[in-house]
């Protein structure tokens, strides 16, 4: 008997179930999505995000993005994701920004050396101040992970109420991507004496740039 057969067999014996038996219906999932004014989501997001130690910028349109973050990029090297929105904001054209990676090893090397990773987001969650990133040709995993700082630039319309709303839009995220990550604040640890330290493995500094117009 293989390990698989034996474990499933032991489970069935313990539960007194026959093989191939379907499961009875489970009640529908409880998703609690607050009915609040969508225009307030950006304000709430900013409040939660800054409480976590992030810093945010609100700009009217895409042309205001580069001036808003220019100071962060002074004397720094950055890697940008392939998100079309970053191109639209003029990020990929900047001299200190490396972009357009399609090979894993090149990207890894660039991210390991960069000061800042710049991405967009697929969604943001106002209730918790979270970014949601789905791995795709536009967004690689390592850009928001290896550099010590992370800047996410996204239109206001991508801000959702909460995790429950995200899961109502994406009931099965694995159908679309091998990796969906929720990022809620800077990387942190409290493993030594429960003292909070930021930036242990992931970025210790995170920034959100929220653009009012698409």
């Amino acid at each position: 008997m293989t390990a698989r057969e034996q474990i499933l067999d032991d489970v069935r014996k313990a539960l007194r179930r026959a093989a191939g038996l379907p499961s009875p219906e489970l009640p529908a999932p409880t998703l609690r999505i607050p009915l609040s004014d969508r225009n307030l989501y950006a304000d709430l997001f900013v409040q939660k995000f800054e409480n976590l130690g992030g810093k945010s910028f609100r700009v009217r349109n895409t042309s205001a993005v580069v001036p808003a973050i220019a100071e962060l990029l002074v004397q720094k090297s950055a890697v940008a994701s392939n998100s079309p929105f970053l191109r639209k904001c003029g990020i990929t054209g900047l001299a200190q920004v490396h972009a357009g990676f399609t090979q894993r090893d090149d990207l890894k090397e660039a991210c390991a050396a960069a000061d800042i990773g710049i991405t967009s987001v697929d969604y943001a969650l106002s209730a918790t101040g979270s970014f949601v990133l789905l791995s795709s040709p536009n967004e690689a995993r390592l850009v928001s992970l290896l550099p010590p700082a992370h800047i996410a630039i996204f239109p206001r319309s991508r801000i959702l109420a909460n995790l429950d709303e995200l899961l109502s839009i994406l009931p099965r995220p694995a159908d679309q991507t091998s990796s969906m990550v929720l990022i809620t604040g800077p990387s942190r640890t409290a493993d030594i004496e429960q003292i909070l330290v930021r930036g242990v493995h992931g970025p210790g500094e995170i920034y959100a740039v929220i653009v009012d117009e698409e």
Partner: protein
Amino acid sequence: MNAPEADIQQAIDDPRLQLAIYTATGRLMDHRAAVVSADALPDYQALRDVANTIKKHTIENLDHYLEQLESNLIAHGGRVVYCRTGQEAADFVLDLAKKRGAHMLVKSKSMTSEEIHFNERLEEHQLEAVETDLGEYILQLAHQRPYHIVAPALHLTRYDVADVFTKELGVPNEVAIEKQTKMARSVLRQKFLEAEIGVSGANFLIADSGAVVVVENEGNARLTTSAPKIHIAIAGIEKVIPRAQDLAVFLNLLGRSATGQPLTVYTSFLSGPRRENEIDGPDEFYLLLLDNGRTKLLADPEKRQSLYCIRCGACLNHCPVYRKIGGHNYPWVYSGPIGAIITPQFQGVHSDTWLPFASSLCGACAEVCPVKIEIPKLLLKLRAEVAEVKRKEDTDDIERFAFQFFAWVATHPKIYLLLASLGSIFFPLVPHLGPLKKWASQRTVPEPAKQSFHAWWASRTARQ
């Protein structure tokens, strides 16, 4: 195994250790209380009920959900490997490492891997496994096991860490926590970039998606699962939940109960190797589904709820016993109240099984458990099982004689009354007598009433 009384006494007598445990668990309790309050989360109690219902349902139909998980994960290009024992899990990884020519692997925090002594098994075959969670890394260097399910190095101070780093890494003695963290970051960063394999645990397995969910704060689990070319997740079979949408309930409870965070910093939802058009991520993805005794726990309809545990550690923080004796005096990697109920079930109930008795049954653990495991009830059930083993083995004659004697007295009213009246006369001596002396030294001994109920009743009837 009898209780390690000398070690327990040593922990209780160590004021530095007592302060460390008390402070850390106290902080975790405060953080939790702030985010499950009626203001912060009005339907917290309702969420616990839903979580319990989903876990109960899943465990009772576990074979169905395991097969669903398996077929969905295979559809996304992953491989599922069932492992009866820790040895089978380690053998699979050793074999894969050999085939791929891997010499080193990075690991993110996984209690399941601690349970099966994963690192030791690999190191016997010269395969280096590097822990990357800061707390786990410190413990690996110090050759210690985790002190707590979510805060593994809770018992160590910055000075201890400085000594460990100096001894094991050859760095100057540095006591600033921020700098210690930077040192660990730079050593481990190199490991992440070089490792051929990343091994993670799993907080949840999602049947309807074929996915592994990992929550963490540091980013080491993201690096472990994203930087190397091979990702292996190790999880107990009980970690499965039916649907991704159920995460709305479980993620809401896990972070709050563990560290007081509405969501932990990183929640990774991972399914299979990188897809065709994705730029990075692993080329190979394996899920090791571990039994290691879990199917034994399933057979008892009441005790199987022990498998609902989501390893938040709240019961440890709130347990007056854990807070005094600390994590290393529990015989297995799982400490605190949850350890007290699952250790005897995994390792078998023997006449010297002491964990179920190391509890005042105060109920704090059950009150804070996010999935509502009835821990005190299970402790009592296990006590009964230990007593049954003793009865069969005839190992505890004095206790058996005492209860037989009591049963005889209680069924003979005249003798009962006689002994009761004698009892009230001799009662003042109790605190000074052998076995009760210790008990009485910590408590106010109740005084017997001047008149017994029987005497009062008799006089009342006589008056009428």
